[in-house]
């Protein structure tokens, strides 16, 4: 009789990485539902092409580097859904495919896949699209009018600041914008799901939003209207809560979200607001390794450092 030997511990927790990623995907469902309601077939189209582009990238990488297909962990799907939610409903199909291909290929796979990417892949894709196709990225539709299909109109987020819809409209998000960044209620529901499943620290979105709000107020903008538009809440709940591209510790994450908030305000002030937030997140991502070095637990129970 022989039994397989292995080092302890011999049991392990039931949670797994795919489970965590699929839970995050599930938290996006309210938002996806709302965007389907707002933009109907246009939304379906964006989601479908975004997923298509990311799957292409995934298959290509698997083929190129002869790796194992890691679709089951869901991170590719998650990236493409997050990206789709940040795109306007009128974006041409080939741009969507290109953007999500770029997001997965250069945002994730070239660094070695899930767990190794320094920058948030969905943001990489979004920044790429904004830099390459700034005009197409600023066309959008009025939501809930999908059946009558009005012609798309050029829209800048600055316009929103000028003709701010009333508060209930701001929270429900039925004003022109991207697929998923406008409906605050659905975003918050998703955030609460993440918090309830203990996938995020509550301070991260809260500190980020507070920072942006306070600094905008200091810059002479309306303190809460400035965070309700422009995808701030979406980024707070779904982008900077991503575990891979943010610091490890809770303390580090707090510092990270304040830093990201400051960067967002600064960049939003001096560049177009559409690009500002993307670049700000990328810059904050780049600071993550330093934050990890600087804020790390150092042991409290013993001080045998340096002693063998």
């Amino acid at each position, binding site marked *: 009789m022989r039994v397989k*030997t292995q080092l*302890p*511990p011999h049991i392990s927790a039931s949670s797994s990485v795919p489970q965590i990623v699929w839970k995050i995907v599930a938290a996006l469902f309210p938002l996806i539902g709302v965007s389907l309601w707002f933009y109907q077939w246009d939304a379906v189209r964006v989601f479908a092409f975004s997923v298509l582009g990311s799957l292409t990238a995934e298959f290509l990488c698997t083929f190129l580097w002869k790796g194992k297909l890691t679709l089951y962990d869901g991170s590719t799907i998650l990236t493409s859904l997050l990206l789709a939610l940040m795109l306007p409903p009128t974006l041409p199909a080939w741009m969507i495919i290109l953007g999500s291909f770029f997001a997965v290929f250069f945002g994730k796979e070239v660094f070695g896949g899930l*767990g190794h990417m320094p920058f948030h892949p969905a943001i990489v894709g979004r920044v790429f699209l904004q830099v390459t196709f700034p005009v197409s990225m600023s066309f959008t539709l009025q939501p809930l009018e999908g059946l009558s299909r009005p012609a798309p109109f050029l829209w800048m987020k600055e316009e929103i600041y000028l003709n701010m819809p009333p508060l209930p409209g701001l929270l429900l998000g039925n004003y022109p914008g991207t697929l998923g960044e406008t409906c605050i209620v659905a975003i918050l529901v998703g955030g609460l799901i993440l918090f309830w499943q203990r996938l995020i620290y509550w301070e991260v979105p809260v500190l980020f939003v507070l920072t942006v709000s306070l600094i905008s107020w200091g810059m002479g903008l309306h303190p809460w209207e400035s965070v309700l538009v422009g995808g701030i809440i979406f980024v707070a709940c779904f982008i900077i809560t991503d575990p891979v591209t943010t610091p490890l510790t809770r303390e580090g994450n707090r510092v990270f979200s304040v830093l990201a908030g400051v960067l967002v305000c600064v960049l939003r002030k001096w560049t177009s607001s559409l690009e500002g937030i993307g670049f700000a997140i990328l810059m904050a991502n780049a600071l993550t390794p330093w934050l990890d070095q600087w804020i790390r637990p150092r*042991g409290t129970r013993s001080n045998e*450092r340096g002693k063998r």
Partner: protein
Amino acid sequence: MRYGICLEGKKEASLISWAIGRISLAERVRIPLTNSLRERVEPMIEIGEDVGLGQKIAVPASVDSVSVHASISGRITDIRDFPYPLGGMRTAIEITAHEENRREFYQPIEREDWNNLSREEILKICQELGLVDLVPEMHPLHKKILKVGEKSSFLIINACESEPYITTNHALLMSHPVEVLKGAEILRKTLGAERVLLALEDHQLEVAELIKSKIYFLRWKNYEVKLFRARYPQGNPSILASDILKAKFEGSGKFAEIEAPVFDAATLYALYEAVVYQKPLIERPVTIGGGCTVESRNVWLPIGASFQDVLRKCRGLLREPGKLLMGGPMRGFAQQSYEVPVLKGTQAILALPREVVKKGKEGPCIRCNRCVEACPVEISPVLVATASEFGDFDLARTYGAEQCIECGNCSYICPAKRPMLDWIRAAKQDAIILEEDFVDIHQNQEQDLLSGAKIR
């Protein structure tokens, strides 16, 4: 407390009865002579000689060692290297029982005046009667007492069993509460401690009530019972001592242990029997269980009985287990063969089913921070393990690898199923220990390095 993890206790099966049973006597035992590489003992018997139950069969040859006693009566049939449950091979004495002149129980000889023994006499008894701390580390008791010195203010009786399945201390305290308390009193006098504290977990309420009533009737004012939240690794001596002293640690975890030395409840029972009845350490309570055994229960097992015999006498296994363990599932030692003997530090023999030990597919770290939150010594397991994985053991040590108490929480909790503890161990020992190598659990304490460790 923020750190540590909650584990499913799975203790019901072996707590159906609080009684510690005894299974029919072993036909053959293999008693290992030493338990750490520092110990030296001289066998004082020859092959073919007859020995009686409790007869001394080896004497210590260094201050670090304790005597070895026959745990059954019979004939010495072999002295050579046998498989050892902590890995590798160790010299052991094989005793085969014969049918005639079999003595079943130890005949107690009550020691006169046991209440007034001096410290030196106690130390001598500990060494002569083979007493060690009845935990897997198996420190000789006299050495531990010497190390504590006479400056401790607290004596902690550790009955926290934070690992799943194990219930030996629970059962022992329910069935022999006064003996354990008296053992503690002997030790308290020896150590000159003022207060004695019995540490329990909050699922052991019945034990707490029983012990409280016993303390009340004994009128021992300086004894108290303290319940801790049940979370792994509460039963770790350093963690326990640091929680009890609530000190901001200037000194190390070990310093805390000396301020408030921690002794296992089973050790105190053995000490009581040794001091009062001159009974050598020839048997100990062990939990048999793990889900694959037909009978899950606590039994007294002679030191040296093979796992195979024991499992057979507990009516065998339901099915082939995924893993056979000595000790709990978090820190226990997986066995390759069923022939290994019960040691003085064997708290449990567990046959875990496949679905319990099944490990998910290993993936890359997703930096979820769960390992950091689970680490009881508040280091960053992910940083240490990653540095170690890239071969930078020095960096791993500056991240605090040495402070790790090897509780295994980080490996347990990791959703990416990374073998965190293996990497952390590698950093601690400056070498990569391959699977199936001997892991010396003393390496924390002394430079007692491994026999036959392969270095990659």
